């Protein structure tokens, strides 16, 4: 439970909100699918933190990311002509490069070349990886992009999908760190007990242990079985919006899932999914269902008025939620809380400790930021993410150490 004031501090990311400023200044984020930004084709509108941008790809393959509004008089650069690697605004032909230089001001009679140099343009550094275009929206010198183990995998080992949802970004983050819903919300998908994912049914009561890290924390969700063995699923929370989920099976060479909740504005988010395998090609059957889909899984099947397409007939037949897709179950409960859930009204139980810790860390960092201290978990020199990996395993007993589970 947090106070109303704390809730606002956590949720608000647009305008001058301190959380928005901190996130933009200290963390890169995935902005748009690479496949949506095609060579020489229309620039794609991207909205993040309540601000409007365009992403485009020049004939040379290079990606640019600029404010949507032309620096001249604000016409939309989504209309612009695209070349190598610049946008030419339709209105007066001002040509703006991906690096933020104004190359041509054809309607200026006096000293156009000198005039062009005085125009201030915001351009944002980009980095492609895992099928996504990542961007840094801060001011000054960008920190290095995060070096997660999936960033440079070849296309057959990684792909991304995403969906826009009418919910605040923090609801998206909390969805990834909460292990206790797995055997309950997703119970229709846990009937085969061979997988570790399905084994979460052995005990719906989860106990947690945490290890604080420089990048966030590891949350071990522990479930004891009747025979004394213990299932451990260790989620990695990486500040500020990443949840690395334990794989469905334990052991090496697993397909893994990463969920990243990125703010579009105060009431909408993009829930990104990155699926990857560090050692071999990812499962191709699932990939054909999901890869590069926008929106993922065909989008939300309805809205509040039809309960987002919930089918009560299949529930009568034994389906536990009335939804056809596991990710839709996550999206629906998140959106059903309302666009910004009022956390001062909630009543938590012991399984919610991971969520409690996410909020504490975000509050601690943003309060420090307000007082002039950069966040300790901020992306900067020395912060490395390449060894972070969510793991899972079956321990012989609860007293065996989950920290020993190999990566």
């Amino acid at each position: 439970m947090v106070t109303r004031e704390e809730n606002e501090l956590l949720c608000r990311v647009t305008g001058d909100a301190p959380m928005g400023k901190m996130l933009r200044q200290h963390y890169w984020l995935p902005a748009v699918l690479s496949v949506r930004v095609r060579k020489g084709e229309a620039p794609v509108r991207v909205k993040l933190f309540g601000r409007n941008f365009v992403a485009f790809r020049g004939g040379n393959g290079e990606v640019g990311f600029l404010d949507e509004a032309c620096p001249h008089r604000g016409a939309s650069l989504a209309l612009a002509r695209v070349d190598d690697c610049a946008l030419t605004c339709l209105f007066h032909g001002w040509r703006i490069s991906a690096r933020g230089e104004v190359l041509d001001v054809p309607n200026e009679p006096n000293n156009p070349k000198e005039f062009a140099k005085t125009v201030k343009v915001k351009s944002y550094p980009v980095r492609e990886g895992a099928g996504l275009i990542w961007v840094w929206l801060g001011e000054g010198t960008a920190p290095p992009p995060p070096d997660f183990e999936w960033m440079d995998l070849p296309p057959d080992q990684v792909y991304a999908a995403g969906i826009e949802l009418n919910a605040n970004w923090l609801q998206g983050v909390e969805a990834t760190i909460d292990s206790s819903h797995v055997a309950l919300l997703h119970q229709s998908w846990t009937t085969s007990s061979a997988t570790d994912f399905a084994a979460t049914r052995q005990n719906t009561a989860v106990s947690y242990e945490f290890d604080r890290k420089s990048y966030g924390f590891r949350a071990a969700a522990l479930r004891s079985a009747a025979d004394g063995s213990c299932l451990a699923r260790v989620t990695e929370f990486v500040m500020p919006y990443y949840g690395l989920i334990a794989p469905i099976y334990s052991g090496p060479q697993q397909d893994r899932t990463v969920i990243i909740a990125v703010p579009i504005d105060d009431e909408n988010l993009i829930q990104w999914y990155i699926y990857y395998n560090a050692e071999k090609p990812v499962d191709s059957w699932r990939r054909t269902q999901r890869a590069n889909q926008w929106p993922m899984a065909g989008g939300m099947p309805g809205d509040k008025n039809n309960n987002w397409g919930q089918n009560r007939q299949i529930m009568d037949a034994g389906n536990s939620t009335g939804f056809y897709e596991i990710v839709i179950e996550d999206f629906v409960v998140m959106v059903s809380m309302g666009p910004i859930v009022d956390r001062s009204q909630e009543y938590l139980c012991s399984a919610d400790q991971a969520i409690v810790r996410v909020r504490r860390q975000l509050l601690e960092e943003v309060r420090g930021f307000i007082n002039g201290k950069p966040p300790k978990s901020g992306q900067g020199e020395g912060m490395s993410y390449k060894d972070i990996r969510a793991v899972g395993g079956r321990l012989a007993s609860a007293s065996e150490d989950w920290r020993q589970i190999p990566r």
Partner: protein
Amino acid sequence: MTDNWKHVCAVSKLSDGEPLGIKLGEQRIALYKVDDDIFATDDVCSHAFALLSTGFLEAHVIECPLHGGMFDVRDGKCRAGGYKDIRAFPVEIRDGEVFVRMDVPEVAS
């Protein structure tokens, strides 16, 4: 006279600022190390059964992770939340081992 002092664990098991939850038979207690002093209280929060050993320790106050209840580890008094006080148990260190006296009466409702 019955010796109500129970051995709990080695002092070395405790780290500054990190509560430790221990079960003594059926009884759950939480141990805290604040600077060089050791304190012990009930582990179960008087509000809704959360374990205080999973909470957050700042100086002498333990904050329950769920609903914000705060208790002073020296005397068990509830400092925030308006919940019933918890029991604080006397602690003795004998040869680097923590002993706790368990015959503290239940807090009156």
